[in-house]
């Protein structure tokens, strides 16, 4: 599985810098999980963050600040921090979900239209993450649609095509509001995508948009 479509350098930098929202950041990290090239670029951009932190002039804390932290350490049971597995949840094709979803909660897949099911993905601490999984049946054609914000999509399994190319597992697509496209899932199997919208999009709008596809389908 080799991705052909990758996040832009700006998206990788924003993800590394922390100026990309939580939902899109998870989609980017699900891509870098399997893409060595982007993982390296991301590591470099993170190192830039380290260098900037290192050169910043310090602002002294209150004298009691360190003691406060020690008190918290002493007061709390020190739990060993280990990575919690996602559990037995796996993708509809049986493969494990990307590791960037390890701490997310995947909701029930709900029917949204013929051949089209969607699951809301809840991210702890980020109620407005606007992250979702979309499962679209083989050879399903989605109506033309535009985007109201930047939409970040990662193909997890299967493939689809639109005017600008073919997208297979591992491929990352970012589309801003100026782009209209008509994705068609390839006939050899269903397609599972992880998608997030940038910014504070109202969920109602998201559902509305998908419902609109459905109505016009």
């Amino acid at each position, binding site marked *: 599985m080799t991705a052909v479509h990758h996040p832009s350098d700006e998206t990788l930098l924003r993800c590394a810098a922390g100026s990309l929202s939580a939902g899109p950041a998870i989609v980017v990290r699900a891509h870098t999980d399997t893409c060595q090239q982007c993982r390296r670029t991301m590591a470099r951009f993170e190192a830039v963050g*380290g260098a900037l932190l290192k050169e910043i002039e310090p602002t002294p804390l209150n*004298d009691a600040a360190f003691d406060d932290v020690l008190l918290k350490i002493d007061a709390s049971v020190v739990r060993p921090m280990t990575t919690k597995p996602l559990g037995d949840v796996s993708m509809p094709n049986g493969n494990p979900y990307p590791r960037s979803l390890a701490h997310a909660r995947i909701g029930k897949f709900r029917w949204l239209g013929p051949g089209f099911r969607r699951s809301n993905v809840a991210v702890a601490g980020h109620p407005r993450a606007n992250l979702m999984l979309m499962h679209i049946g083989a050879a399903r054609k989605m109506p033309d649609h535009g985007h109201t914000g930047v939409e970040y999509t990662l193909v997890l399994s299967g493939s689809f095509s639109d005017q600008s190319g073919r997208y297979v597992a591992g491929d990352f697509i970012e589309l801003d509001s100026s782009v209209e496209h008509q994705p068609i899932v390839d006939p050899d199997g269903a397609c599972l995508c992880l998608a997030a919208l940038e910014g504070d999009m109202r969920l109602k709008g998201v559902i509305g948009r998908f419902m609109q596809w459905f109505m016009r389908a």
Partner: protein
Amino acid sequence: MNVAISAGRYRYVPATAASTSGRRASARGLMAYSEEELRSKMSAVATGDRQSFAELFAYFAPKVKSLLMRKGYDAALAEEIAQEVMLAVWRKAGLYDAARANPTTWIFSIVRNRTIDRFRNERRHTLIAPDPSDEVEGPPDGEAVLVTSDEEREVRAALSRLSEEQALIIRSFYFDDKSHSQIATDLSLPLGTVKSRVRLAIAHLRKLLDDRE
């Protein structure tokens, strides 16, 4: 050392009052550690060494506080989050993998994960529970991403070769979370111009970072 031990307890001494006791200090009299030194302190903290933790705290907490204030948090909240970040450093020191990131980069990523999408003026900062996303995401098995101490020098060299405007644009992503339209307003430039300058700045940085190999 920045840290004095009094009556068996480890006490944080504000950096400005530090005696350097033979360590090299910057022109401002502040402690400067190499990433090598920070790494050995990190591994000591992983074994529960409070003296090393006190030193890391004295070094990093004031920088983290500054970073948060640059990001727009008021001093009190910045201090609170800086304390949380250092608490996370204590708890997660065992998860730190020196082969994946320098200590400073690792701590930067903890700060970043705690501030994504947070409101600057949020009075009550609610995120107290350790954030699982602080773990350094590493490559799948076996891939060596050897981070050398040289990396930090090289990254700094790359940053210093950017033009003033490009450095400003890059920093705005790390410090200010600014959108293109906000940058456009700040620089009194049309949005399209800002977009292409942002692209150029990032491409230049990427090239400088790639060239160091």
